[in-house]
Structures are given as structure tokens and as C-alpha cells.
């Protein structure tokens, strides 16, 4: 009997277990015949059987407290994710609404400035500059106010430290 036969038998035993052989009938028959004549492979099969039974019997189990803590953590995280999703939905709806309003009001203002320019018989470049200034004005005003506030705060803090 050559070494390949032993190797083949041991692999068949190891991969499928000695009691739960593969579906391949010819391999099973060959293995059964081999085991009848080979004491070392028979011993290997017995050891593998013991090992597998031993592995299945190792008493490792999750504790009840671990399971309930995990369930609680998962529920809490699910709630957080739900809230995050709701917030994201709210923010995206608000952004869409603001963008739509800005678009509509820009069109309406453009038409308004065009109408006023025509009424006052102004050149189109003039009412267009007026439209630009009108659009930029709120941002400019806010910028100036913020700068003034910063300067005021800096002066105020400086009077305490100085």
C-alpha cells in the first residue's frame, strides 16, 4: 500500500468526518475497504471521531446578560439611526424648498426689474446692475454688520485686558 493511499484516506476522513462520509459512493467504498486493511488509518479515523465529538461538546455559550445588553445596544443604535435619517430627510426637504423659492423669486424679481426699467425708459444695463445690487445687498449688509460686531467685541475685550 503506497503513501498516497494513506494520504487520500486521511483526507477523506478529515474533510467529511468518519461517521458522516461524502456523497461519493465510490470514495466511501474505497475508504471502507482501505480501513479494513490499514490499522494506522483506522486509528486516525477514531481520533478524528473523538476530536469532532470533543469539539462539538466544548461548552462555550454566550451569557444571557450579554445577549440582552447587545439587544438593548442594537435597539438604541437603531433609534439613533432612525433619528439621523429623519433629520437628514428634513434638511434635504428644507434645502429643496429654499432652492425652489430662491429660483422662483429670482425669476419674479428679474421680471419686476425688467418691467420697471421699461417703464422708466432705462437702458437694460442699468436695471440689470440695479437687480444685481438688490440681490447682493442683503449679503453685503450682513457682512458689514458682522464686521462691525467683531470690531465692537474686539474693542470691548481690549478695554478689559488693557
Amino acid at each position: 500500500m503506497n503513501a498516497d493511499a494513506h494520504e487520500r484516506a486521511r483526507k477523506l476522513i478529515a474533510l467529511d468526518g468518519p461517521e458522516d462520509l461524502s456523497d461519493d459512493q465510490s470514495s466511501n467504498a474505497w475508504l471502507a475497504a482501505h480501513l479494513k486493511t490499514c490499522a494506522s488509518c483506522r486509528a486516525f479515523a477514531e481520533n478524528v471521531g473523538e476530536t469532532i465529538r470533543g469539539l462539538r461538546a466544548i461548552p462555550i455559550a454566550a451569557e444571557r446578560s450579554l445577549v440582552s445588553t447587545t439587544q438593548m445596544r442594537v435597539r438604541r443604535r437603531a433609534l439613533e439611526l432612525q433619528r439621523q435619517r429623519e433629520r437628514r430627510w428634513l434638511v434635504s426637504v428644507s434645502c429643496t424648498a429654499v432652492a425652489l423659492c430662491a429660483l422662483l423669486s429670482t425669476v419674479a424679481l428679474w421680471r419686476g426689474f425688467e418691467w420697471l426699467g421699461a417703464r422708466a425708459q432705462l437702458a437694460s444695463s442699468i436695471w440689470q446692475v440695479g437687480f444685481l445690487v438688490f440681490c447682493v445687498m442683503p449679503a453685503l449688509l450682513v457682512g458689514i454688520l458682522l464686521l462691525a460686531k467683531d470690531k465692537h467685541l474686539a474693542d470691548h475685550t481690549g478695554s478689559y485686558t488693557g
Partner: protein
Amino acid sequence: MNATDFYFESSMAQESTEIARGLRRRDPDLLDRLIERYQHRLFRYLMCLTGRRELAEDLFQETWIRVLERGHQFNDKYAFGTWLFAVARNLVIDHMRRKQPASLDGLLNDGEAAFDVPATGQASAFDTTLQREQNEHIAAGMQHLPAEYREALVLRFQEGMSLEEIASVARVPLGTVKSRIYRGLSALEPWVKGAAL
């Protein structure tokens, strides 16, 4: 394929589809049931990979949080258990990488950690004691095996996974899985015989 195989395969596929749908909805009731169902199997697997109860408990919780967050990635063509073990395995590898740049191969080889087998209570009968001793020998043998052999043995003989499923969890070719199982069992032989004790 016979009628029984077909019945089991179609009911498993249906179950996977339901799980996938529930995970996409992040249904907490479904997750509760899954945690209950897979508690011991997942914990045993994590214990086998880490060898430390506290770490296995932390990773157990992290695995389920990851399942909740990435549930939409679960493909219902596969069994949920296979995906769950793959998620857990990735978390273990991430944890080990944070500690030191290493793969699963480096797990438990430092000799510090132990494959912790808890006491089973008051075993008084001779057979129970004998069996417990035998299990302890095997558990002791397991801690001397490289982590990838331990993983293959646990998935094959404790979890009853097919060789293909193990290959999918461990992301290695089928041939590698076969050789890990064979070498793992061969390496455990001395502990079963009691020669190495």
C-alpha cells in the same frame, strides 16, 4: 435534486429574502430574533478567533451593531450565517490591526491568551468527568493551533458549515480550507491521544 432538498433550499432562500428585507428596514424585532438565534454560534466563533472572553463579548456586540448599520449590504443569495461570520471575522481583523499590524495568522500565537473553557458546573458522574477531561484536552490543543486552523475546525465541526461556506467566510480558496481542516485535525491528534499532556 430531490423534493426534500428542493423544499429546504427554497425555504432557506425565502428566509434569506425576509432577513434581507428586514435588515434594509433596520427592523429591531428581527435583529432581536437573529441575536437570540445566533448567540451561541457567533460567540463560540469569536471565542475561537480571539481566545479571550472579554474581547469576544465586545466583538459580539460590535458585530450586531455592524449588522444593523450595514444590513443593506447583505445579499439574500447567501445564507445569513455565512455573512454574519464574515462580518465578525472582519471586525476581529480590524481589532488586531489596531493593536498591531497583523492578519488573522498572528492571533493567539503570543502564548498569552487562553482558549478559555468555562467550568461546566458540578460534574460528578465518571463519564461526565471523563468527557469533560477529554474536552479540556481538545480545548488545550486548540490553543496551540494557528488561528486559521482553529477557525476552519470550528466552522466545519461546531457550526456544521460546508467547505464552500467556510471558503466564503475566510475568503480563501476551497483547497486552502481543505488543507487547513486536514492539518488542524492532524495537529490535534496528540492532544486527543493525551501524548502531549
